[in-house]
């Protein structure tokens, strides 16, 4: 329900987003520092063996419906799957690619948990939110299903339960927020038999990633995907194959997504304040002219000007 603080927030954004300091929209994007201890995940694609045990663990930890074929079935690699599309009701999927020597390379796909998520800045009801702990979480109690988060996500991650008439949910990986809150490692990281998925503080994962790259420069390419992509993501990848060959979106840039709408939002307050003066002024001008003309005819014609 609306508290006084919320009221001020709305007032601030509707009336003077650009003029009010802390709560205004304009300052929200650039002032992001995030929780320095926020968690992230590091996927090392040179280690992944495509066993799909992360998929199985994820399915169990999130009580998702049983898949059509078992998690040992390798035939799923014949197509490039997406998480939570049509009959693939999973928060994460592993897809197979081949490097130039014909050796298989596996890529795990799930929500990237951006530091400044496009989905969260799209959401008109703060259902999507970057949590203090790091996962981008979703609040079922306020979501009304506009799906702007799905439109906005540059990684094509969130999905909608279109076949649910009464309680449709937005579905995606939540980095096992329920487990993290209790101090337990996310299911996929726990299940991985080859330590291809590491859970930890994002700041330390970036150091770990670069340590691995620098200590074995021949094995890795010189890029931590997610360190700067879309302004930085919570999920990081290192790989021996260029990311562009693994269907990673390479057009997401390094600008945090909320920045794209910041300029527009900062115009809102100015417009709301200036327009009444501007158009009121013009009205007074045309009104004045009309009065002069009518003075010559009859005095009491104020009615007419109001029309």
């Amino acid at each position: 329900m609306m508290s006084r603080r919320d009221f001020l927030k709305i007032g601030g954004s509707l009336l003077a987003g650009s003029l009010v300091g802390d709560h205004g929209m304009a300052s929200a994007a650039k002032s992001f520092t995030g929780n320095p201890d926020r968690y992230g995940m590091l996927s090392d694609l040179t280690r992944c063996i495509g066993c799909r045990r992360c998929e199985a663990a994820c399915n169990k930890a999130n009580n998702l419906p049983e898949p059509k074929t078992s998690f040992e079935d390798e035939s799923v690699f014949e197509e490039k799957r997406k998480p939570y599309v049509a009959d693939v009701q999973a928060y994460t999927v592993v897809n197979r690619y081949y490097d130039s020597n014909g050796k298989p390379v596996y890529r795990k796909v799930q929500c990237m948990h951006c530091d400044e998520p496009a989905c969260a800045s799209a959401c008109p009801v703060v259902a999507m939110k970057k949590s203090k702990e790091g996962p981008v979480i979703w609040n079922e109690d306020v979501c009304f299903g506009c799906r702007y988060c799905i439109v906005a996500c540059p990684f094509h991650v969130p999905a909608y339960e279109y076949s649910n008439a009464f309680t449709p949910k937005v579905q995606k990986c939540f980095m096992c927020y329920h487990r993290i809150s209790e101090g337990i490692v996310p299911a996929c990281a726990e299940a991985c038999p080859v330590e291809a998925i590491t859970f930890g503080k994002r700041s330390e994962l970036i150091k770990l990633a670069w340590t691995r790259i620098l200590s074995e420069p021949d094995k890795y390419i010189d890029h931590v995907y997610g360190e700067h992509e879309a302004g930085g993501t919570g999920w990081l990848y290192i790989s021996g194959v260029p990311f562009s060959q693994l269907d990673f979106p390479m057009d997401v840039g390094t600008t945090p997504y909320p920045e794209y709408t910041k300029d527009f939002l900062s115009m809102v307050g100015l417009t709301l304040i200036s327009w009444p003066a501007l158009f009121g002024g013009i009205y007074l001008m045309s009104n004045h002219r009309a009065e002069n003309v009518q003075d010559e005819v009859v005095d009491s014609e104020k009615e007419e000007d109001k029309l």
Partner: protein
Amino acid sequence: MIKFPAWINEYIDWISDKLFMGLTIKEYMKRLLTPFNIIAGLIVFVGLYFLIQRYTQGLVAVTEASNELPWGLFLGIGLFTQVPYSSVGFVLGTAVYIFGLKKYHPVLKNAILLGFLGYFFAVVFILIDIGRPWRIYYPMVISFGTNSVLFLVAWHVALYNLVQALELAPPAFEWLGFKTLRRWAKIITLALVISGIMLSTLHQSALGAMFLLTPGKLHPLWYTSFLPWLFFVSCIPAGLAYLIVVSKLTQIFLKDKADSHYLKSLDNISLGLGKASALILITYVGLRLYSVAQENVWQYLNTPYGHWFFVEFSLFAILPFLFYYGVQRKNVGFVQLTALLTIFTIALNRVNTTLIAFNWQLPHHIYWKEGVVLIAVLTIQLLIYRWVVNRMPILREHPDYISEVHLPSAGTSVASKGS
């Protein structure tokens, strides 16, 4: 037979007089049986059947239900295309009330009605498209996503709906014969018009700003930091063209609901609106070119999407010259046809931005049932428009208030009447 006391009978007579336009129920029903109404009824019937499916089985029953293209025709046309047309209410309100262009007074009420219905049905389409429509008021009272452009759109569309409903109140009260209420509604007109300008400029541009969040997904020829400006500038000729076309249609189909003053003034008004459209459209075309230069995306022009962009751009580029030609020749029919082409071109632009050029690297499908529901809801909108125009003094002046309008010679009679 049940016998009612006399005062209840009076009420019933009054209500049926208002609803059935002075006819008996039997006569009224008989009049309804026209080929147009039967076809419209069938379309609405099928649409409502699909809507029941949508609300019982989920969106998958009537939409493509895609996670690549989550918004289909309902929002692509019902919201993003319909709202620019509906700018007509605020544009004409500004012209008449703020700039004092009394020449456009005869079409003002029609413009406000069209604007109101456009926004109202944009909300209807939102109610069809969002997953949990019973929560539509959440951005207003439950949870505030103040960093979201859509939050802004939600507030502004809601407020503007209210403003337009109030702007429409005078003719509604004239119809019902509520004189005091009408006077009150008239007093707040100026405040309403100015808040209408604020809300419209912001949310027309906000609809474009929503796609600022999708670089990479929206094709580079359509994605530009100018999107909010482009949406705003183009909404004005969209509204003007919409009014030109609807005015022509009222001249043909609703002639008996219009007074001679309205019918006589239409040609001149259409030429004036056409002239304004020519100037704004040529500016828009310039801005569009500027945006391509600014983003430096010329290399995409010679691709399939580039050719499609060229089609859209050429249509826009030709429109100002067609308007100019028609106005110069005082050829009203030509201006009306150009207005029709403008409506189509604006729709093409909005559909391109929201659907066709969106996620351009992925395949696109639209489920046919979406189209049926869209047409059915638009048919309901048309029927409501006709219902209102049949009853309220929209295309004519109410005899009691006619003296307020004819200026300035008739003005003296207002003064004498008032004193």
